[in-house]
């Protein structure tokens, strides 16, 4: 009796296993068909994004996931994309042209007459005024860029006049960069009298962008379709789908499996694979997009011993950009020794230069500062934290090792994005990786280094630098501004509240034949923000 049992069980196990295999085969075959069959009919572009949107009206809150769909659904007064690295700080989206008065205080924008919302109503100056006035009144995020606005006038439906309290040469370019996130022009006739956060139209947005809203499968995807009546012409693809893929490894896998033709640089493909494999792969283009951002170390000047200039200089000597480039980026990034950026050469002061790596000099300076090595071989303890993105992480990891070599007992502390940002804002850190944005107008220095400014986490305060930045901002004459910004860079390298290490190098992957992505040169100056896909074309 016992002898018969195992064979019966075995038969059943085999039957169950057989059935399972059959189901799996059926499912696999059904899926294989959908994978094997290329998309026919409409040209569809699938793009991964790392996080779902909160709403489809990003004007009232920061919304990382929302910028992608909303930048394609909505339009902007002016826009900026990666063409900025080739010298275009801003260009018109709704605005056909604009002029400034001699003082640089009153800006007059002429709107395109063929711009329409997706419901067919024309876009007029009243919509621009309504959007900007609401932002200013409610102090929504774009207000940081509109803080100096005295009045917005609409003399006719195609003209917007923005009067500032004082001259500001950077006003339009800064409005251009902000359009990547905020300042989507909303239809007054649908939003007026409603609170933006709760307006029902947010769920089925009506914009004036190159794509119309079709569907939002929450947590999964957004589907948009081409707007044939777009004021800049019909997009070259028919459908645009954003898929939410939080894990960068999985997004990379999706790209490698051929399920999407584009891996945006936010996902940062593995540096090692880019250097050793992908650059030789004939089926794809590895796109290196220059940037107006650098990657740096911010030093907290409120804290001992970083408040000692000798210690900061020693740290600058201890950090070896070339070695870090090899270890962190497989040599793919570009070290930088200036307080500016190559991509914006006009205002770069090449004579203001950070010290090069030199361990002996670093140790000598630390000895001079009275911070000698103790019995354990270390001089003092310090915490290194990082901007929570891939490059910021790998830089911090290498920096800890480089600092330890000169006797600084560095420890790597990692936090979730909110905790990290809160700590930086509160000045609760020693050293952190972060970025400096140098454009589209060099007034961007103010945001990072002006006393009490939003990104001045270092607690840096230099009245002379503040005065110089104010003077440069009030002038619209490049010949006058140039020496002022050169002086700013000299002060930064001398005082060293931050140490510029690399020019950011954005790495995207594009399947052969696809063109017009904002990261590619073919997409510069017409993508309508970094997140715009109106100009993308499939292989012929």
């Amino acid at each position, binding site marked *: *009796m*016992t002898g018969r*049992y*195992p064979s*019966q*069980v075995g038969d059943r*196990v085999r039957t169950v296993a057989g059935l399972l295999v059959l189901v799996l085969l059926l*499912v*696999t075959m*059904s*899926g*294989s068909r*959908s*994978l094997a*069959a290329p*998309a026919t009919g409409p040209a*569809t572009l*699938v793009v991964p994004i790392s*996080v779902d949107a*909160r*709403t489809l009206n990003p004007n009232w*809150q*920061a*919304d990382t996931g929302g910028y992608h769909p909303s930048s394609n659904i909505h339009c902007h007064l002016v826009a900026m994309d990666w063409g900025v690295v080739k010298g275009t700080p801003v260009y018109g989206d709704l605005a056909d042209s604009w002029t400034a008065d001699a003082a640089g205080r009153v800006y007059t924008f002429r709107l395109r007459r063929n711009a329409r919302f997706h419901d067919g109503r024309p876009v007029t100056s009243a919509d621009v005024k309504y959007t900007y006035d609401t932002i200013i009144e*409610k*102090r*929504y*995020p774009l207000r*940081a860029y509109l803080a100096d606005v005295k009045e917005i006038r609409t003399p006719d439906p195609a003209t917007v006049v923005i009067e500032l309290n004082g001259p500001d040469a950077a006003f339009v370019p800064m409005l251009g960069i902000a359009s990547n*996130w905020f300042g989507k022009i909303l239809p007054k006739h649908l939003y007026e009298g409603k609170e933006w956060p*709760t307006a029902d139209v947010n769920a089925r947005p009506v914009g004036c962008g190159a794509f119309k809203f079709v569907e939002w*499968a*929450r*947590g*999964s*995807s957004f*589907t948009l379709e081409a707007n044939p009546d777009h004021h800049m012409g019909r997009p070259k693809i028919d*459908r645009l*789908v954003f*898929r939410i*893929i*939080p*894990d960068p*490894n*999985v997004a990379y*896998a*999706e790209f*490698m*499996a*051929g*399920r999407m033709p584009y891996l945006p640089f936010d996902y940062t493909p593995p540096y090692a694979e880019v250097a050793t494999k992908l650059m030789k792969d004939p089926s794809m283009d590895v796109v290196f997009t220059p940037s107006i951002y650098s990657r740096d170390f911010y030093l907290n000047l409120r804290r001992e011993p970083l408040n000692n200039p000798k210690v900061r200089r020693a740290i600058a000597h201890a950090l070896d950009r070339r070695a870090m480039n090899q270890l962190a980026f497989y040599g793919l990034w570009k070290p930088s020794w200036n307080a500016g950026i190559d991509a914006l050469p006009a205002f770069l002061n090449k004579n203001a230069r950070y010290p090069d790596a030199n361990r002996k000099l670093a140790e000598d300076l630390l000895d001079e500062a009275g911070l000698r090595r103790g019995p354990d071989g270390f001089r003092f303890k310090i915490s290194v934290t990082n901007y929570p993105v891939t490059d910021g992480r790998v830089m911090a990891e290498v920096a800890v090792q480089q600092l330890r070599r000169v006797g600084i007992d560095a420890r790597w502390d990692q*936090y*979730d*994005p*909110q*905790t990290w*940002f*809160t700590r930086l804002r509160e000045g609760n850190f020693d050293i952190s990786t972060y970025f400096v944005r140098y454009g589209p107008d060099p007034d961007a220095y103010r*945001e990072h280094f002006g006393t009490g400014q*939003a990104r001045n986490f270092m607690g840096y305060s230099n009245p002379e630098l503040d005065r110089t930045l104010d003077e440069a901002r009030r002038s619209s004459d490049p010949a006058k501004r140039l020496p002022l910004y050169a002086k700013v860079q000299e002060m930064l390298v001398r005082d060293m509240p931050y140490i510029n290490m690399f020019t950011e190098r954005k790495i995207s992957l594009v399947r052969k034949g696809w063109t017009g992505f904002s990261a590619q040169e073919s997409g510069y100056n017409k993508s309508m923000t970094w997140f715009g896909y109106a100009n993308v074309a499939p292989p012929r």
Partner: protein
Amino acid sequence: MRLRRFLVLRMIQLVPVLLVVVVLNFVLIHLAPGDVALAMAGENPDPVYMAAIRERFGLDKPLHVQLLTYIARIAQGDLGDSFRSRRPVTETLLERVPATLLLVATALAFSSLLGTIVGTWIARRAGGGLDVWVSGLAVASYSVPVFWLGLMLILFLAIRVPVFPPSGMMSVTGVAPGLARWLDILHHLVLPALALSTVWFGQYVRIARSSVLQVLSEDFVTTARAIGYPERQVLFGHVLPNAMLPVVTVLGLQLGLVLAGAVLTETVFAWPGLGQLVYESILARDTPLIVGSYVVMGVCVVAASLLVDLVYAALDPRVEL
């Protein structure tokens, strides 16, 4: 009558459990640095805007006032609105529950059934070569981190040999509704369900094996065999019902975590379920959504333990409700 009393008692027990869940999570979220106003204001925050947000959501009030207000709201069955999307929490959660249920229920059914069968099978050959190998594999599958296993499955079964889609719940282009859509979802379900059930499978093998082994050595089994009952009857009629209690316990625990247990798997496979939502909400400090999710999960845990107790009573005549 006794059953009704038992159920009423358990419902009463639900109240302190949920209260602890709410208070603990509410306090923990507020202890974490940063708040939703900062998340909404972005990296160039306007203090007036942030103050308005805090006032709007009552975040400017003392913590105990916020907590009491929230508890009063929950007591009326209202989980509130999400800070970030301004949509009702209940509606947001309900949208995500089906995806999570599909994934976790599939994995749970697959791992518990197969794990129990395999565990029982090797228990009868304890000490043999097969037992050593299968037990070793079970420990390995139980120990492997689910996100790593997920990535490996994607690497081998979606890229090297592209038979399954790497992620997502359905194809975003060109699938007609009806049977084709369901097959498409099943096709997407294979890898995440395989990852999750592999990790759970080992647990069931180990528990079923040791439990069956213990029962097999009991006197009543020897007696049954001596009487001459067929081995199949001994196993299915006497051994398995007695050996199932620990398996049911683990199943109950996992059933309770059915909505919470797949955060990593959902993140790796971009599965649009509750786990992914909770993860995003924590990063954004969206308190109503986080606490609301945990309340629903708490209810699930209590309901599952109630179910386990009922099954215990049915399986084991010594257990009385």
